[in-house]
């Protein structure tokens, strides 16, 4: 029988039908592995319910504001890049695939394979955040902030940064600022990984190196996103004045629709869209970060060979959480990026 990993930690022979098999992963207050698994499963589903309701408030605000001010949403969505959003969608979908695959691997007790799939999932999460950082920083450069700070002026192009690291790399200062913390983490994880390696603590070393690889994913996303961003901008600049005129024309039409009180100084409150945008994507990004932490923990447990066919709950549960993060993005993408 048994697709059980025989590791140093799992000594006892595993019997499916033995309900008194109090292996070390069965908490003292549960009678059977199945009861423990069912409890965890229901727990995580219920937790997902709370997450859905948590986000529902934002969707409610979104629907309300869009319903009453569709013109704001149309005007504002021009600042969002469908390609970057689309790439991020695919990245998240791919991470969902690897996550689901990791669950399968854990279910079959293939810890090593599961750990690799989880590492890919972690990297995808970081790539997603890297692309997001490019998107955010690009908006900040254009003075596109939440409603009260929204100060975008039509046709405004920020000067290319000339000083410091930003000038040297030819990217904006805001992006550099967003990269500081990931860079520190990358270096920190690398150092920790090496230290544990020297101390011959294999599992910890593997964990920290995996986390360093994950942070590398962030820079992969950021660099890729920035290259695309630069290309898109130069294409727009070469595309020239035509596009600009069209945009200006559209704006004039909107002004006519909104009514005569709209003075040029007080255009429709486009910043409102970005309030919603930043809150929704920001909260989603926090969930991605939370997922990265949970995935790192799973990675560690996989390298310690903790999972086996009657005990894979943690992978399954984190997987469900990760799929929910994906689900939310599946809705956020069309609602924020695809507005005509």
């Amino acid at each position, binding site marked *: 029988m*048994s*697709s059980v*990993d*025989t590791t140093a930690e799992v000594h006892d022979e595993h019997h*499916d039908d033995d309900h008194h098999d109090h292996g070390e992963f069965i908490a003292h207050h549960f009678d059977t592995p*199945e009861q423990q698994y*069912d409890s965890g499963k*229901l727990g995580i589903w219920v937790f*997902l*319910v709370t997450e*859905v*309701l948590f986000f*529902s*408030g934002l969707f*409610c605000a979104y*629907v*309300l504001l869009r319903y*009453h001010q569709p013109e704001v949403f149309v005007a504002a969505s021009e600042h969002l890049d*469908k390609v970057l959003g*689309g790439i991020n*969608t695919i990245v998240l*979908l791919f991470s*969902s*695939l690897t996550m*689901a*695959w990791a669950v*399968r*691997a854990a*279910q*079959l*007790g*293939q810890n*090593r*394979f599961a750990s690799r799939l989880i590492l890919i999932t972690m990297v995808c999460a970081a790539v997603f955040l890297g692309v997001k950082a490019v998107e955010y920083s690009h908006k900040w450069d254009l*003075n596109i*902030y939440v409603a*009260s*700070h*929204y*100060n*975008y*002026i039509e046709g405004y192009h920020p000067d290319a940064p000339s000083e410091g690291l930003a000038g040297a790399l030819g990217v904006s200062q805001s992006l550099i600022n967003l990269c500081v913390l990931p860079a520190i983490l990358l270096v920190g994880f690398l150092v920790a990984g090496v230290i544990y390696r020297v101390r011959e603590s294999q599992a910890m070393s593997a964990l920290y190196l995996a986390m360093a690889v994950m942070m590398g994913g962030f820079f992969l996303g950021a660099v890729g996103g920035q290259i695309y961003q630069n290309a898109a901008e130069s294409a727009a600049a070469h595309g020239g004045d035509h596009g600009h005129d069209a945009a200006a024309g559209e704006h004039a039409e909107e002004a006519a629709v909104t009514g005569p*009180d709209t*003075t040029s100084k*007080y255009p429709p409150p486009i910043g409102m869209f970005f309030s919603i945008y930043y809150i929704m994507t920001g909260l989603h990004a926090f969930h991605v970060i939370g997922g990265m932490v949970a995935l790192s923990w799973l990675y560690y447990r996989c390298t310690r060979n903790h999972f086996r*066919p009657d005990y*894979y709950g943690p992978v*399954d549960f984190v*997987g*469900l959480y990760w799929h929910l993060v*994906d*689900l939310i993005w*599946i*809705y956020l*993408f*069309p*609602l924020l990026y*695809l*507005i*005509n």
Partner: protein
Amino acid sequence: MNEHEHAHDSHGDHGDLPRYNHPVSVKLLLTVFFCLVGLTILTVVVNGFGLGQLDIWAALLIASVKAAIVCLFFMHMFWEKGFNIIAFISSLFFVTLFIGLTLMDTRAYRDSQDKFPLDKRPEPTVVRDANS
């Protein structure tokens, strides 16, 4: 390592697995993933048609199909216990209730808020001088 011995296809029998353990076959996972990618491309393409009012509904429909297959196969809802499915789906009922009743109300008094004098709107707080 010995894992690959066990990496048999899930079409094979898993008689040795506990009864709550239902691995999804790799083939199905990949199929689902490519469907999701296809639907993502589809939603961008449909968006390009400029269907006007229908746009948002088309986008939401596609998103819901995507969400459904993620739930069913990636999240194993297809094999899930009835109670857990009901628990999760019930959240959508409460979300509908919440958003529905709130919208119903705001529609009624919205006019008074739209009269907010635009020239009384505060100047934006400048983070960085746009003209520098």
